[in-house]
């Protein structure tokens, strides 16, 4: 299967009766995702696009097995919903909520780490394996962006991801899985953790990292590659190369302070680790082609 989700993954949707939950549930189903149940307190007995709704995760799981939880829950209730899923034994969670309080995001990641769970998000579009399944909100209907293939993509951004993914596809490649780790300063899962999954994924040949200023996720990715923890060829594009110090560029996590988190440092770290970094979106396709050739050459040498 793909690294996070495929057509056999049984997905539970928390917050399924809301506008967003209902809308994207129908798209997740349309794309082939197996949505087994939904949860909204007080709405048990309803159905949303044919999916039965339960008051609680616990009650839903009495009737339906689930491997993953998709959260369409407002940011202030996200911690509760994540803990509810974890408490019921679910170990793969995606939350799209934009605006999770920082200290709660910290608790979410801490709890996930403690029980070896993966929480993707918040402030993300989610995870998609084009042609197979989706947890989140992607315009999979735009085929020039979300075509299936063997490139693993990781990103902190939303619309920039559409931009870069379109370049990947334009260059003749497709996407195995795309993971949006989200734009918050404390995402539940970090690049380096996603890369480990891609590393052991037989369906992924190469990686594209879509980064930006702020934080240290790109540096951690570079460190993982440098230490041999990820051996697949990787290309990257990073936004915010010319961003001024101390200004938050849209995302909570996209800020440099005291010289830390600058794209210059990130690019240097990635390049030192052997990642081919594109200067502009339109170079991403060429970079991919180059690393794939190099990768093939590398294989030939062995």
């Amino acid at each position, binding site marked *: 299967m793909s690294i996070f989700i495929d057509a056999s993954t049984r997905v539970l949707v928390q917050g399924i009766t809301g506008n967003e939950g209902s809308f994207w549930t129908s798209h997740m189903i349309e794309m082939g995702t197996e949505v087994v149940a939904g949860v909204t307190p007080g709405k048990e007995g309803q159905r949303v696009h044919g999916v039965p709704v339960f008051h609680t995760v616990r009650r839903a799981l009495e009737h339906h097995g689930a491997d993953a939880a998709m959260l369409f829950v407002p940011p202030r209730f996200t911690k509760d919903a994540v803990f509810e899923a974890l408490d019921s034994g679910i170990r793969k969670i995606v939350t799209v909520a934009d605006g999770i309080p*920082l200290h709660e995001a*910290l608790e979410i990641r*801490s709890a996930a780490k403690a029980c070896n769970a993966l929480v993707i998000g918040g402030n993300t579009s989610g995870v998609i394996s084009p042609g197979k399944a989706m947890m989140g*909100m992607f315009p999979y209907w735009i085929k020039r962006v979300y075509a299936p293939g063997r490139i693993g993509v990781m990103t902190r951004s939303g*619309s920039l991801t559409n931009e870069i993914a379109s370049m990947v596809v334009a260059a003749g490649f497709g996407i195995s899985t795309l993971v949006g780790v989200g734009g918050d*300063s404390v995402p539940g899962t970090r690049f380096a953790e996603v890369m480990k999954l891609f590393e052991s994924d037989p369906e992924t040949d190469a990686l594209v990292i879509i980064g930006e200023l702020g934080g240290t996720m790109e540096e951690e990715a570079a460190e993982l590659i440098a230490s041999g923890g990820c051996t697949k060829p990787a290309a990257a594009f990073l936004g915010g190369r010319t961003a001024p110090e101390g200004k938050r560029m849209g995302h909570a996590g996209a800020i440099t302070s*005291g010289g830390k988190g600058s794209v210059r440092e990130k690019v240097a770290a990635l390049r030192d680790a052997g990642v081919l970094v594109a200067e502009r*979106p339109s170079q991403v396709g060429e970079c991919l082609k180059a690393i794939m050739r190099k990768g093939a050459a590398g294989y030939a040498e062995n």
Partner: protein
Amino acid sequence: MNLFEYQAKELFREAGIPVPQSRLITGTEDIAQAAKSLPLPWMLKAQVLQGGRGKANLIRKAADLQQAQREASDLFASPTGVRTVLVEEIVPFTRELYVSVTVDPVEAKILVLASSSGGVEVETLSQSAPEKLLSLHLEPGKKLLPFQARNLAYGLGLEGKSAISCSTVLVKLFELCAGADAELAEINPLFVTSEGEVIAGDGKIIIDDNAVFRQPRFQMTRDHFSSEVEYAAAQEGIPYLQFDGDISLMCAGAGLTTTVFDLIHDEGSSVANYLEFGGPNYRKAVRAMELCLANPSKVILIVTFGTIARADVMAQGIVDAVRQLKPDRPVVTCIRGTNEEEAFAVLRTAGLEPIFDTEEAVKKAVALTRGEGQV
């Protein structure tokens, strides 16, 4: 949200962390009144959010009333836009420490930092003398226990009363950080007096923007912004940054906007303002364009690649904005994503030529700033 020094010190005082005696003034005329209850000499500290106020000459010493009045009027006349000044007693100290509480996103823990070299930036500290920087990680939800604070205080080489005072302050600062939903709560420098007291010389608190809803005490005011436009955008909930270049960005998606920002600089041009009207704001094209027009920019560049922020809806908004506001400068549009074909049609009806490629759109906008390729 960054708090001003005087706000941070207000929180310190309430938390039981000693701070210097002070008065907040909003004009030179308040000096005389302050002098009645606060003995000179003073420090006069401009209440602005930028770092490095010392180097920027935004902190002045005043030995007597005349000097205080002179320095204050000078500060209020600063081009930075100083609206308030903190008048503070001068604290004689024997040492300066650094203490802070922040979050470690990798470990998913609260991070307490302490150093015996206060008064310099922590980034400098961590590079120049990492051995002097003590750190402690705590699980979120846990409190800093007094013994942990003492381990830090004695670790800094403090002795006697100052060690106890410092550890007490650490415990209180830690509680303040969690209670105020702070990203950062920092005291730098923390003065140590010859009597072993500690006093917060300067303070920096950043409240998590995602939690301000439950921290109703501090609101963003006009003082937080360097221009009226920035303030207006913030009130609208539209992410906006003020620059002074040629191109007004009106884009959707933080990452994409930031990338366009880079591309413009790569082309040798400059940005007048960074503005994002994606996500929850994608129906606010009119308001967004109004904010752009408030700048003396030469071109408005619109780049989007939206999913929920549907291309056709945004295109319609842009068309409405152009019709309503009749911009006095060229508008370049590059609208992709959900329903992009419909979006192109909508733009064309209003005489806006849709561009499909981000870099092409950037090039076009830059050319326009130079008077080339006028549409």
